[in-house]
């Protein structure tokens, strides 16, 4: 149990997928302008990453490794993720419209979110077992969400602040992200 807890702390705080491992920067810059879109994106990422992590792990363990096709991992994983996102989108639209309303527009963006693909690859490269995959996928997604929501809170304030003209847009976002990452450096040593 303590192993999983340590893994969770590591994935959320110490080795934050976004701030320490740089995965998922594009949506981080793209959807962190407002709090509600950030929360929506977080929901979508947690949902898809958990499913994608478990499905790709299962395929890797029982198909690719069994048939010695590990070199096709990249192509298989991306296709699985793309079809999973498509499937989730259709399913939510038909079966749970309120949830679709909240997450729907973020789902297509998730296909090319490196955080999803990256975590799926890390899961199999580190030889995690099924439980470890589950814990690592969920906590990585939560770590991504934490960074995204923190950033959105700051950017909402920045919208009303006077920022030097040349720093406007992505430049100030990157520098702010740098300072959040610096704050997260304080967690090094916890795991």
């Amino acid at each position, binding site marked *: 149990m303590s192993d999983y807890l340590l893994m969770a702390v590591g994935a959320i705080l110490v080795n934050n997928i976004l701030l320490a491992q740089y995965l998922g920067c594009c949506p981080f810059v793209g959807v962190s302008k407002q709090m509600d879109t950030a929360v929506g994106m977080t929901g979508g990422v947690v949902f898809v990453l958990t499913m994608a992590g478990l499905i790709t792990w299962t395929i890797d363990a029982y198909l690719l490794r069994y048939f010695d096709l590990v*070199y*096709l991992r990249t*192509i298989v994983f991306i296709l699985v993720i793309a079809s999973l996102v498509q499937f989730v989108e259709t399913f939510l639209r038909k079966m749970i419209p309120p949830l679709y309303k909240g997450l729907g527009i973020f789902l297509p963006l998730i296909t090319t979110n490196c955080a999803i693909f990256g975590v799926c690859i890390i899961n199999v490269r580190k*030889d995690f077992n099924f439980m470890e995959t589950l814990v690592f996928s969920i906590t990585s997604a939560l770590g991504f969400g934490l960074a995204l929501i923190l950033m959105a809170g700051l950017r909402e304030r920045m919208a009303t602040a006077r920022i030097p003209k040349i720093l406007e847009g992505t430049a100030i976002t990157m520098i702010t992200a740098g300072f959040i990452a610096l704050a997260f450096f304080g967690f090094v040593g916890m795991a």
Partner: protein
Amino acid sequence: MRDIIKMIVVLGLIAGVAGALLAGVRMGTMEKIEYQELKYVKGPVIMKILKGCTNNPIKDRFKLKYGEEEINFFPAVFDGKLDVVAFETTGGGFGGDIGIVMAVNLEKDTLTGIGITTHKETPGVGTLVKDSESFKNSVKGLSVNQPIKVKNDGGKVDAVTGATVTSRGVCEGATRGSEIYRKLKNDILAKAKDIK
């Protein structure tokens, strides 16, 4: 309907061509990749236990079949004559298989060295064995004609304090390796006689 058929045909064709292309590239690079992996991942361990040899054991490696599995053998030349052969084996540890490389003297049938390539032991514990010189030294010179055991089990090897299970796993792997060596010795000599 025609649209759907076209969609499936195009997607299928692209996937088929992609698959064939990748299979081709894979075939073309397989041998090279295997060499690189041996050189970078296992190479340092192999070179350490074969220190002082005059040939390139990784380049001169050959494969032999042992039951179902294929095992890589790394022949090493000392003073102009083939003396030692190193090969991979596995032992059961605390957290899974431990990858072991062991070197055996072809003339005396004794172990000349042992190294650990991969392990999934608890961090800190597995490394204790991996880095323990006294453990590795106590293995040297043991005959491959009898099981290799730690002292607790009536053998001659000093188990690493705090890592008994791992030490036992390595010994078990070495014993298994000895069996492989005994069974394949004639094949090894036949294969390796040209290597200088």
